[in-house]
């Protein structure tokens, strides 16, 4: 589904952040990308979703057999790529439900489907909200405005549940959550696991992985994947911290 080869990325006019990433994600798989702050995790998430301001200097990214990098962010969204943001942005005056509906209907339109009317959409949303234990009042508040950290993250998962992406990238979705919120979010993520869908969890800590068990874990450090393995690798990291990576990297270089 996603095929990243030798990806080199820098900020426009600045130094390289990703220095040759190789990653292959198939449908049905859950991958975790772990690494210390500044290792390039969020850059990877952003470049996949199409954020501007980055410079791809080398390498390719194929998504469902096509070049992903020359597509606009909205085209990527229509084709089933979803990014759960680390810092969901506030949009004053725009109702949450309005954004959700506009996004879903833009996608349906792209696929030649009829747009959902307000009633059908509301029924769909309410159903999804129940699973995430979200209060309906959320729908009528401005997008992320005045939401707590946990509410923002749950809102991201709600959007994901409604848009039903093929490839979902979750950027630090566990950060800022207390244990109860973490469990609810994890349940929401698990509910979306399916043989047709791939998930990429970008995270600093292991604790989300206690609840969402990944098939593969990759350790990212200084712009490179330095180690890949099964879910046991996450536990290993948890035990010994990121310091051993730095040590092993120093030994490499």
């Amino acid at each position, binding site marked *: 589904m996603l095929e990243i080869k030798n990806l080199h990325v820098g900020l426009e006019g600045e130094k390289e952040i990703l220095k040759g990433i190789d990653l292959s994600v198939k449908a049905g798989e859950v991958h975790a990308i772990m690494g210390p702050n500044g290792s390039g995790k969020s850059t990877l998430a952003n470049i996949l979703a199409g954020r501007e301001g980055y410079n791809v200097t080398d390498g390719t990214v194929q998504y469902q057999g096509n070049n992903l990098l020359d597509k606009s962010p909205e085209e990527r969204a229509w084709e089933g790529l979803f990014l759960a*943001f680390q810092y969901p942005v506030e949009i004053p005056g*725009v109702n949450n439900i309005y954004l959700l509906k506009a996004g879903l209907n*833009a996608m349906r339109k792209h696929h030649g489907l009829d747009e959902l009317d307000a009633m059908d959409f509301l029924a769909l949303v309410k159903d999804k909200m129940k699973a995430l234990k979200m209060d309906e009042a959320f729908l009528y508040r401005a997008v992320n405005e005045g939401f707590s950290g946990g509410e923002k993250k749950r809102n991201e998962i709600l959007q994901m549940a409604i848009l039903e992406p093929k490839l979902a990238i979750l950027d630090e979705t566990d950060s800022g959550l207390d244990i109860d919120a973490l469990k609810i979010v994890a349940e929401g993520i698990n509910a979306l696991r399916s043989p047709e869908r791939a998930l990429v969890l970008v995270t600093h800590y292991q604790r989300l992985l206690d609840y969402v068990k990944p098939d593969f874990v990759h350790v990212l450090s200084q712009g490179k994947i330095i180690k890949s393995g099964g879910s046991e690798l996450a536990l290993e990291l948890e035990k010994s911290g990121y310091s051993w990576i730095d040590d092993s990297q120093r030994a490499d270089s």
Partner: protein
Amino acid sequence: MSKESNYIEKLLSRDYEHGFTTDIETESLPCGLTEDTVRAISAKKNEPKFMLEWRLQAFRHWLTMREPNWSSVVHPPIDYQAISYYSAPKNAADAPKSLDEVDPELLRTYEKLGIPLREQEMLAGVAVDAVFDSVSVATTFKKKLGELGIIFCSFSEALQEHPDLIKEYLGSVVPYKDNFFATLNSAVFSDGSFVYIPKGVRCPMELSTYFRINAISTGQFERTLIIADEGSYVSYLEGCTAPMRDENQLHAAVVELIALKDAQIKYSTVQNWYPGDKEGKGGIYNFVTKRGECRGDNAKISWTQVETGSAITWKYPSCILKGDNTVGEFYSVALTNNYQQADTGTKMIHLGKNTKSTIISKGISAGKGQNAYRGLVQVAAGADNARNYTQCDSLLLGDKCGAHTFPYIEAKNPTANIEHEATTSRISEDQLFYCRQRGISAEDAVSMIVNGFCKEVFKELPMEFAVEAQKLLGVSLEGSVG
């Protein structure tokens, strides 16, 4: 600024939708302004003598005045002798008695504007007084309103049928000496709308006027007078468009509102006069004086305006809170794009006790547009417990535009409670990216974010206008995202 500004620039390269002209034979006065012009206008309308006298007083006073230069708008000097002060569709001499008698070409113009002039508006509950150049063309629903004792007609007609009401109220809120443009209007106004709501009557439909400037080199000087008698209620809508012309056209209107004891007036404007082209050529100079007086206790006047058109907008819909417990409100969205300039705001004059005013102003600047909020909150010595809340928000699109805020506060009573909040923001790359990641195109995202920014004002508009205003903002920001 990076890609964001490119998108916004593309979004802003829009075209004016109402730029058609209508081919109708008109009868105009030659350009120029003398006492004879004033007499000619008055004679054409067969006005009562007091009206001519009033016009002449205004004209003589105007000769002693100078164009104001305190606002932040910039324009080449206006040649007041190069303007025709009266233009009317020719066959309007024997005024149309019903829509069937209105020139079909004119009706097509209104259709193009999407103005509901025909009977189906009954369903929409809108009664329309359409002012085309200088003459009121048709007023619908007069009969239905008449049964309630409501008078809704052109100003000229009111002068013939209800001269006493005009004599009593005209100039009682905006005196003819008020300011340069209001004085000019007082001398040469050609028509406008008149509304009287009798005691205790709640007007069952929105009353509506559409203004359109069509003829070349004409100014439009209309005058609106609305009187809400004790305990009555009226909601009034005003919309404006003009064809595209290379030269600037002057629009200097006066609106006077009088709310007596326990009365309420809600006045909504969607102004979409031709703004000029992308290089700033042409467009309407919109110099308007709008003022309402809450004359009796517990009265309320509410102004809501959405200003997206005109090369220059210069207007300050204001409230004089004379009665005790009176309420004044001002909700405004002003959008300037390309070379448009807006200097707009309000004056809230607190005279009575326990008076309350609210000001919500949303300025959106794009392209090279300049947008100024200018407001005065004045609390007189006797106005115990006056309260004001002011909120001025500016949104910048791109990096060549400007937003300015000039709030003036004069409080002469120690019990006054005055709050002022102001913010300036821009559409962030983060907001755009977030929306696009959810599948919403950049163009739709900008329109959605701008509409969100204006929400507090739009919710004050009557339903059918709110939809129009949202669309208008969408169109105003529309372009070709490649």
